């Protein structure tokens, strides 16, 4: 079965030949920030780059696509809007060295600095941080005819083999608000400055709808909304605030996406966001990711919501993959398949990006165990 067919069956809650696999390995699919990178590969982090190099060496391949095929990745592409010409000149083409050494600016004017180890960055400037009105920020204009050549190319080259995921470059709503306004300031707006919060979120909504429309018109199969609303033990903001500001806008956005084409909507949030899973399903989310087992019980989520939403991820990136043995990894993968794969609606993978503290043997065990025990009908 082709990865595309396998993935579509799983997303339609049918049982394919085996559970689809997708492990987040940096520079493969996701870039992890508000920067379109379609053709601009220098912008990698150290940790993820090391993992990719280690795997390529192990399989003796040089191209990413060859690596994904060797591993058996079923969802290896993320289509994004092309970076604007102005942005390419200003940021992307500076290359690796500058990026690793200096403060950089995203296409939306958010500035960030990489940490000492090169693994993560810290935002140091937000365009609305000292502004009185959200109208002092304008998103760039999107030209659907011109701005999605990378997405179009991915769909053309790989769309018959793989489900192509399209991603919003500005993240979802909560994170976009934080990036544009600043972490604490945006929280403060949500509590005591509703005029600012509403105006900003409306702008984000319009931009996201337009960007999603471009991706859908170019033929992507699913849209990724990345919005980290969960932390280790629960949601970051009270659910009532999420329901007041974000839920109605998510509904408008998802309704628009689904009116533009037959697409799945994929919602990513780190951490525990159990409080709003029913709301996410209600507004039309089809896929939840990454179901971090250190934060939520994946079996319980499957039991309660597994017939309505596909669960994607679920193998511990906080414990098992970096610190466990290969036996621990195999055992966890089998447990996830046993408790989550029945009836389709499951994509197995790491519960976030693989970093270079994960041993090669554990990465390989994750794939091998998923391929061996993920065959339908499940018989663990």
């Amino acid at each position: 079965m082709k990865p595309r067919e396998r993935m579509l069956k799983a997303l339609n809650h049918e049982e394919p030949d085996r559970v689809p696999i997708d492990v987040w390995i940096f520079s493969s699919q996701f870039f992890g920030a508000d920067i379109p990178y379609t053709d601009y590969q220098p912008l990698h982090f150290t940790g993820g780059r090391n993992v990719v190099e280690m795997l390529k060496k192990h399989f003796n391949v040089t191209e990413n696509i060859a690596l994904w095929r060797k591993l058996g990745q079923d969802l290896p592409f993320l289509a994004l809007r092309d970076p604007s010409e102005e942005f390419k000149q200003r940021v992307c083409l500076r290359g690796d060295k500058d990026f690793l050494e200096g403060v950089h600016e995203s296409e939306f004017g958010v500035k960030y600095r990489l940490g000492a180890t090169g693994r993560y960055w810290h935002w140091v400037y937000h365009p609305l941080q000292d502004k009185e009105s959200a109208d002092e920020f304008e998103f760039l204009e999107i030209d659907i005819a011109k701005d999605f050549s990378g997405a179009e190319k991915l769909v053309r080259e790989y769309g018959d083999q793989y489900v192509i995921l399209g991603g919003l470059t500005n993240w979802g709503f909560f994170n976009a608000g934080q990036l544009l306004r600043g972490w604490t300031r945006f929280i403060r707006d949500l509590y005591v400055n509703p005029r600012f919060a509403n105006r900003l979120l409306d702008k984000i909504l319009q931009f996201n709808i337009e960007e999603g429309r471009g991706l859908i018109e170019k033929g992507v199969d699913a849209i990724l909304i990345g919005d980290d609303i969960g932390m280790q033990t629960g949601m970051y903001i009270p659910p009532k605030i999420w329901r007041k500001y974000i839920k109605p806008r998510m509904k408008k956005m998802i309704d628009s996406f689904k009116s533009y084409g037959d697409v799945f909507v994929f919602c990513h949030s780190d951490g525990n966001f159990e409080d709003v899973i029913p709301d996410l399903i209600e507004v039309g989310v089809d896929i939840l990711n990454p179901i971090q087992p250190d934060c939520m019980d994946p079996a319980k989520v499957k039991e309660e919501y597994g017939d309505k939403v596909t669960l994607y991820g679920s193998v511990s990136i906080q414990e098992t993959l970096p610190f466990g043995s290969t036996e621990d990894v195999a055992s966890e993968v089998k447990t996830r398949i046993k408790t989550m794969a029945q009836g389709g609606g499951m994509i197995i993978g790491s519960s976030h990006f693989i970093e270079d503290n994960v041993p090669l043997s554990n990465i390989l065990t994750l794939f091998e165990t998923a391929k061996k025990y993920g065959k339908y009908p499940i018989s663990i």
Partner: protein
Amino acid sequence: MVTCDLKYLTDAIVKLDVKNIGNLVHEAIAAGTRPLEILKALNMGMEEVGQRFQKNEYYLADLIMAGETMNEALKVLAPYLKVEKGKIKGKVVLGTIEGDLHDIGKNIVKTMLSSAGFEIYDLGIDVPPKKFAEKAKEVGASVIGVSALLSTSVPTTAKVVEELTKSGIRTKVKVIIGGGAVRKWNIEKFGVDDAVNDVVEGVKIIRSWMED
């Protein structure tokens, strides 16, 4: 005990009334209330917020807003506290470990401890292990709080302990690590004194050490 007539200040913190807290503190001062009494009432609010967070009644954003509310109150109160300064309960060095840039938890710990009368030396984010030891030695701190949210950065906390040992002050300084990926087994593995993934629990532990 906080007298009943200052309960409205405690309540203002609990209700996260960031807009009005400054005026309320002004009024209390104008009415002749002792600044330390005002501080005590505000702190009781922070304690209540912490308890509600631990009971899952409050969310992290509520804690952040409580910190914001406290900061607004302290902006008004600080000049008066200088006149009537309470005894410093102890010195704490805080920072996010090298390779990690998360600072929300650290900042909440800072607000809660400083409002409770501790002197805080915040080294910021992405802090090399050596700097923690150097600062603790320089200021005579008895606790170091290391924030580490990532599984890739938590092991670096062991180096803070090594640096303290090298500096000859390990026995004088307790080390606590806190963050999402932190686990109790880190205590033995990395040689720290405690490990938590709940900010309020972390503050409680530090206070219990300092107030012993």
